[in-house]
Structures are given as structure tokens and as C-alpha cells.
């Protein structure tokens, strides 16, 4: 089940191709997604998405409801659905497209899923401990409780009974508990009170200062763009814009067309 057999079934997108190399081509970016195509069963959702990032870069992935943002993140994190049929994903020289989710996670992909996915039956603390069982370990629990004092207060409460905002904090904390090279945030502000949004914004700025490479998907485009260096806009499963965040903030037409703001 390890990623050796399916290797040759992936058709390399790049024309150069040749024998499917186990090592990323020279001079490639820190992270690269190339021409991703993915399906939920029979529905073709991700239709050729591709973008790349430098180490430490923060990228805002924007688009309307149903544009395929979540699906793209899930594809990169190598979850079973949607099913990647074509394309490559490279992180720090590692071929993620040949891996399963748990392997990708060990390479350093950290996804904070959109519906938070706090694990039922485990306490807050156990949710965090769970994230540290497999290598590589990130922040310690103490550090995390310092960052999110509310979690510290409720560490023995069952995770799923937390309020929405608390759950979001736990979801982020859980990912930071691992040593993450690529942080994928799916709507981190959703359902959070303004004070908390500001708090998480602060956290994310801290994370940015740590130099963590981050993709953030967010309906609150303005907030995301303030945080990000770059912006990629998706529509109908395809990239329709790829440029700097500032450009989007400045370009009203663009914002209007794709983001309705």
C-alpha cells in the first residue's frame, strides 16, 4: 500500500516527463501543485488546478461557494476524497501525490479542515495528544495552552461539546501540535466572534512570522488578503487568477467579479 506501485500510473503533467522521477526537478519551488484533476465519485470537481509557493509564503485561495477550494486543499492533503486522477503535488522535494494522507502528514502537511472535525469521545487534551503520537512533533501542549488559554481551561472537557469558536481554536492548535511545513487553513474564521477572529488573526500573523508556508481559504477575503502575500482565485474548479494579494486588494473589478466585495 506504500506509494510505490501507483507511481507509474500517474501521467506526469510536464512535457519533459521522462521516467517519472522520484526526486523533484531541479530549481523547483518549495511547494508545487501541478495540473490537479480530482473526482468525487463521478463528479469532476478539481479541473486542472495548479500553483506553486516559495518557502514561507502565505497564499490566499479565494473563490465563491462551490468553486472547489476545499476540494483543492483536500487533494493536496491526500485525503481519499476527492480522488486524484492526474497531476502532481510536491512539497520540499517530496512527491505528495504518491502518498496517503498520513504519509503526507509526516512529510509536513497540516490541514485544518473546514468543519473542524474534533474527535468525539476524546477530551481537549486527548485531541491534542493524538496529534503528537506520530512524528514530527511541533509545539508542546504548554505552549499551545499559552496561545489558547481557553483550551487550557477546558482541557478535560469532551472536545465536541466545546462551542464553535473553541472548537476552531482546538482544530488550529491540534495542527500546530505537529511540526508543519505546509499549513492548510480552510475557513479558520468561520463562526467565530469578532474578538476571537482578531485573536486568531494575531495567531496567524505570529505563524507567518515563524515563516510557515501557509494556504488560507477564507470567505472573508479582505482579512485573508491582508494576511497573505499572494492570491489565487478559483472558479468552477479552475484557477482564474494568480497574482499578488495587494493587486487583488487594489483591483476593485477583480474583487467584484470573483469575490463580490
Amino acid at each position, binding site marked *: *500500500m506504500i*506509494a510505490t*506501485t*501507483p507511481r507509474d*500510473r*500517474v*501521467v506526469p503533467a510536464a512535457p519533459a516527463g521522462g521516467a517519472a522521477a522520484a526526486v523533484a526537478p531541479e530549481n523547483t519551488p518549495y511547494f508545487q501543485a501541478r495540473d490537479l*484533476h480530482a473526482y468525487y465519485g*463521478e463528479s469532476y470537481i478539481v479541473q486542472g488546478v495548479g500553483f506553486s509557493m516559495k518557502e514561507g509564503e502565505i497564499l490566499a485561495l479565494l473563490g465563491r461557494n462551490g468553486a472547489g477550494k476545499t476540494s483543492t486543499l483536500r487533494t493536496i492533503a491526500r485525503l481519499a476524497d476527492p*480522488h*486524484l*486522477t*492526474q*497531476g502532481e503535488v510536491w512539497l520540499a522535494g517530496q512527491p505528495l*501525490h*504518491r502518498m*496517503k494522507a498520513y504519509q503526507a502528514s509526516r512529510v509536513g502537511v497540516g490541514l485544518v479542515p473546514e468543519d473542524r472535525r474534533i474527535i468525539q469521545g476524546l477530551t481537549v487534551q486527548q485531541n491534542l495528544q493524538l496529534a503528537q503520537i506520530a512524528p514530527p512533533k511541533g509545539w508542546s501542549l504548554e505552549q499551545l495552552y499559552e496561545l489558547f488559554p481557553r483550551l487550557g481551561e477546558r482541557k478535560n472537557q469532551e472536545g465536541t461539546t466545546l462551542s464553535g469558536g473553541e472548537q476552531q481554536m482546538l482544530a488550529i492548535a491540534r495542527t500546530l501540535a505537529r511540526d508543519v511545513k505546509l499549513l492548510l487553513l480552510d475557513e479558520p474564521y468561520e463562526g467565530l466572534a469578532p474578538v476571537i477572529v482578531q485573536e486568531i488573526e494575531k495567531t496567524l500573523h505570529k505563524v507567518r512570522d515563524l515563516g510557515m508556508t501557509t494556504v488560507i481559504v477564507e470567505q472573508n477575503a479582505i482579512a485573508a488578503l491582508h494576511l497573505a502575500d499572494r492570491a489565487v482565485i478559483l472558479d468552477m474548479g479552475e484557477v482564474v487568477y494568480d497574482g499578488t494579494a495587494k493587486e487583488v486588494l487594489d483591483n476593485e473589478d477583480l474583487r467584484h467579479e470573483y469575490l463580490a466585495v
Partner: protein
Amino acid sequence: MTTITRETARGDLLRFALFAVLILAMPLWLAPLGAGYPDLMQKFAIYGLFAVGFNILFGLTGYLSFGHAAFLGVGSYTAVWSFKLLGMNPLPAIALAIVLAGAFAWVIGFVSLRRTGIYFAILTLAFAQMSYNLAYSVLTPITNGETGLRVLNSDPRVLDHMMGAGEVEGSLVSTLFGIEMNGLPGFYFCAVWLLIGMYVSFRLFRSPFGLMLMAIKSNQNRMNFTGINTRPYALTAFVISGMYAGLAGALLCVTDPLAGAERMQWTASGEVVLMTILGGAGTLLGPMLGAGIIKYSENIFSAFNEQTLHEIFGFLPDGVEGAVVSVASLFVGEGWHLTLGLLFMLIVIFLPGGVIEGGHRIQALLRRRGKGGGADQAHPQAAE
């Protein structure tokens, strides 16, 4: 699952008509398959009816009952008692069986539906097993225990006596308008009931009531917050499917007036579950198909023996024939369970959702292949 609002009334009628023709023509097209004899065709119709009814509960509401055989049993015992007391006319027997099975289902359903999921399944199982165990032992005066309840010459049969005055001797076979309900007439009698049952189920599936049941399966919680009292809906479905089971039980006795306790055992309840899933729960025709597959293998595969195998493989050279026969004999005769087990596994593995659903998928796949042509190359299979 097909959803209601996508189907047209005409399409449904057409489908039903086609189905009716297929059923009525069974003696013709089943004969080459070795299944064109009355007893097996009766079983197809009767168990088909049982499964169709079960599907109204399980397919629509998702409540998995593991005790439906109890209603089959109640229907059977009621029918035989009706033969014994009233006479050999099948109509009162059927009417009484449906009513009694429905009442029994109401009681059991009322209690069991307080729970959901596996808890519900075990409650129904428990009730059915109690019925079975008691029918086999303590209730022998009513059920005649292991041997099964039969009609005897000494039984009162009041209606028969009233009609035929003295002349009630002769064969103890259920008789309608002078036609004995065994053999082909028996099959057609069952087939008519099957068609009625199927038609009712067609209507239910497409009705607002059916929609409510599907919604219960989909999200019971949302139903409650939508102002709908789910319990009576589920109970109605439970009772209706219990009545189908009662009808099926009665028909078993119409075609063969004996009611055995084993028809209430958990394996019998399990069988109807398997039939329904095998064919495709929630589909209109699936359960009928599942019933056919299981009854066919039970009756046909168990009947093979070495002699028949030698006949079949006789064309092979001697040495090869011997080998083929000895391998094949593992799967037939006393090994027919093995075939059945493998069949279950193969169907669920390769046709998820049952035969009907699997058929749809294969169809869709072929269509996509056909349309896509080169699509295969453009989207090579799976990076894992």
C-alpha cells in the same frame, strides 16, 4: 436510490406493465433454467412479496428489522387455522392472516420503534426469537410444534361443511372456485397477489407517505424539527410490511397447507434481509430479484449431485471430467451453502447497493466509456 421527483407516472406504469408480463410468463422463461416448476415459482412469488414488503420498511425508512419472520409465521398459522376452522377457501385465510399479522406487527413495532439502529434490530430479533421458541415448544397446542400445523380430516371446517353438506372428504388442499391452489393455478394465484403487492409498493414509493419515510431514513433529526412526528410514520411502515409478511405466510399455506415453526427462526428473518440487500434495498424491483436468486440457489444448487454433474460435464475427456466434477461437487448438493455464501460476498463486493444498483452502475460506466472514448487515457486511474 432513485428519487421520486425524477420519475414520471408514465415511466412507472410502463415499468410495472413490463414486470407484470415477466411474472406471468415465468413458466415459459424459467423452464430452460430448470426453475419452471410450480413449487419454485410459487416460492419466487411468495418470497418476492415478503421481500417487497420488507423493503417498504427497510428500504424506505432504513429501520433494519431482524424479526420479520415472526409475521410470516403468524400469517401462516392464521391461515392454517382458518383452513381448519372455516374451510379450505384461501380468501378468508388471507384476510385473517393479513389482519392478524398486522396487529402483531403493530404491537411489536410500537415497542421496538422506541429505539433506533442496532437497538431496534435486536428488539425485533428478540421478539421473533421468543415467538419461534415458544411456537416450537410450549405453544405446540396451537402450532403443532416441530412437525408443523396441518389440516386434518377431523377438523371442523364449518364453511366447507355448510357448502358441501356431507361431501368434505378428499384432498385437503386450498380450493378457490373449485380450482385447487397447487401446481400452476397456485402459482398464478400467488402471482396475482405479488402483482397487487408490487403495485401497492410502487404507489407507496412515489407517494408523499413514501417521501416521508425516505426522509426519516435520511435525517430523522431534521424531520422532528420540521414538525413531523416520525414515530407513527415508521410504525405505519412497520405494520404495512408486517401485513405483507402475513400475506406471504398465508400464501405459503395456500399452496401447501402446512405451517412450520422454522419459518419464524432468526435465520428466516435474516433471509429476507439478505434478499432485500442482495437485490438492492430501496429499489422497487431489487427485493424481488434478491428473493429469486436466493430461492433459486436453495432449490436448484442443492438438487445437484454427482450423477447430474457427470451428465453436465460428460462432454469432457474422462480424466478432466473427473477433476471438474469433484471440484464442482464442492459447490452443489450438500455444498450449496458454499455457493450461497460466495454469491453473497461477490455481489456485495462487486455490486455495492445490490444487483439493481450494481446494474445501474455498470450501465453508467459503460455509458461513460462509450461517450468518453479516449477519456481513459486522459484520466488514467488513480494515484493512490
